[in-house]
């Protein structure tokens, strides 16, 4: 071996002694060039824009199912899927906000049902006018969100526990208030039913409820990415103590997130009235899991601080495309359950694979 004092040298930088410096391009440069195949460049692009990969998965899903059953790709079916997703997608925006702060909301469905029944019953039984009933429902959603927010920020309870508790409380309140009875379309003022109106865009038929959901996405997306409040939501979810030290009023941000989520749930409730054509205390049984699933498939981290509402929208659409696609393919319920489970794991695996590839 060489002498101790001379055996070490910089790879290609000028070294005191040792092997001659490698000339020209560095080893890393060479490596980088070798790797920069077109496929690699695509992966780079995907890495820079995280929403592209769930979007690709969605497109892939649609293409596969459309090839299995041509009806799937038709405008009617696509319109249908969009309508079917509208409510869960709207609820998932509120869930996204809360998960971004490293929380979780198990009371999603309960809040929506409570405000929906309040809107519907005050209008149908107490004779409140449409706008007043709607306003009352929205206020109820805000109040429910505020209660969650109060318990999380003031009593410093884990959001999981708070919303587990309020899930029971709000569910019980809705049952006690309605006695389990639903309110039919005809008994409700037009404003409440308005979200069910169909709008034709070429061959596509969407409802005004879909537009409300779209509006919720636009406003929430804008607020998260373009305002100081949005920054603070991310910062608090990322590291609450660092945010506090940096001067963010953590509790105020958290509280505002729960209130905003409550309002969004109430708006989703309005969309639900139009969609179901009735207000029923048994609607959306799977709201909790479905909304969380959309958020997580959309790439938002359950540990907070990372994610975006666009991903959530794609996540909701992916799940819907799976269920509708399998159903149109004539797959029976139990097999569909099995397939959806497999597909959810597959979709996220592909997404992870696309995101993980670096270089």
């Amino acid at each position, binding site marked *: 071996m060489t002498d101790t004092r001379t055996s070490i040298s910089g790879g290609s930088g000028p070294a005191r002694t040792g092997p001659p410096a490698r000339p020209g391009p560095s080893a890393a440069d060479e490596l980088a060039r070798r790797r920069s195949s077109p496929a690699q460049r695509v992966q780079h692009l995907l890495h820079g824009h995280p929403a592209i990969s769930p979007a690709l998965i969605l497109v892939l899903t649609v293409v596969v199912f459309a090839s299995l059953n041509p009806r799937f790709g038709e405008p009617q079916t696509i319109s249908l899927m969009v309508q079917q997703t509208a409510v869960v997608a709207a609820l998932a925006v509120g869930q996204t906000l809360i998960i971004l702060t490293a929380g979780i909301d198990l009371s999603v469905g309960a809040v929506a049902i409570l405000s929906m029944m309040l809107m519907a019953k005050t209008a149908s039984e107490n004779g409140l006018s449409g706008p007043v009933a709607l306003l009352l429902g929205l206020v109820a959603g805000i109040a429910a969100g505020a209660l969650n927010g109060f318990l999380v920020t003031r009593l410093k309870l884990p959001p999981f526990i708070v919303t587990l508790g309020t899930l029971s409380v709000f569910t019980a309140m809705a049952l006690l208030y309605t006695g389990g009875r639903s309110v039919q379309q005809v008994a409700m003022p037009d404003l409440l039913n308005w979200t069910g109106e169909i709008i034709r865009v070429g061959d596509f038929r969407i409802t005004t409820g879909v537009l409300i959901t779209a509006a919720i996405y636009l406003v929430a997306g804008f607020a998260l990415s373009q305002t100081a409040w949005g920054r603070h939501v991310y910062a608090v979810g990322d*590291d609450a103590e660092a945010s506090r030290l940096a001067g963010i009023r953590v509790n105020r941000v958290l509280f505002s997130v729960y209130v905003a989520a409550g309002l969004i749930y109430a708006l989703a409730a309005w969309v639900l009235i139009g969609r179901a054509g009735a207000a029923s205390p048994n609607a959306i049984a799977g709201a909790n899991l479905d909304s969380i699933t959309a958020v997580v498939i959309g790439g938002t981290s359950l540990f907070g601080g990372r994610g975006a509402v666009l991903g959530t929208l794609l996540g909701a659409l992916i799940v819907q495309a799976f269920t509708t696609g399998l159903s149109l393919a004539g797959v029976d319920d139990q097999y569909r359950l099995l397939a959806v489970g497999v597909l959810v794991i597959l979709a996220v695996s592909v997404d992870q694979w696309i995101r993980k590839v670096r270089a």
Partner: protein
Amino acid sequence: MTTPVLSARGLVKTFGRVVGLDGVDLDLHRGEVLAVIGDNGAGKSTLIKTLTGALAPDAGEIRLDGELVSFKRPQDAREAGIETVYQTLAVAPALDIASNLYLAREERRPGVLGSVLRMLDKKGMRDRAQQSVQELGISTIQNMAVPVESLSGGQRQAVAVARAAAFGSKVVVLDEPTAALGVKESGQVLRLVEQLRERNLGVILISHNMPHVWEVADRIHVQRLGRCAGVITPESHSMTDGVAIMTGAMALPA
């Protein structure tokens, strides 16, 4: 004489049974660099946390420009003009550099976009962030849009220091700002401390690096076992004396 810009009397802070601070007094004047030295666990970080609203002291009082103040949260101290780099840095790892620099003091776009839609002036903040970081001479940080978590330890520290330097109006507190920094970068931070003094701000600098302290400090607060073991100056005492007082090998006459 002038009123100290920041002064504290009899600060006490305990954690369960651990005594963090045990009746500490401190005065900081405008245009002065006050260094705080002491062994690990001597209570330096605890001292500046109570001064900047990050911790509520159990007892004692704090005055800013002679007025009794009580900071409930860091935001209060910040609004009063006290800017701090905590030892734990207090950055949000997933946010980019510019967002971290402007965290909790974001700037909006001019016109309707800013006032009504409350839209952030992302580009403006990014440009000004670039400038702040460049002033510190951290040349390896190029892109203000990369998340802080992808930076090296030293680069992160530079971001935190740049933030404090850019926004402090009365007092800047630095808790071991050069711990992870390279030689060049450390020198840059010391120059920055001197600039802040020239801008007539009060600076509190915590450091374990004695040559740095003796280079820039006007006075040196020696913290020992939660108490103040005395205040010296680089002229009155040598580095060796300072270390001796810190470790209890030497006591100052009462």
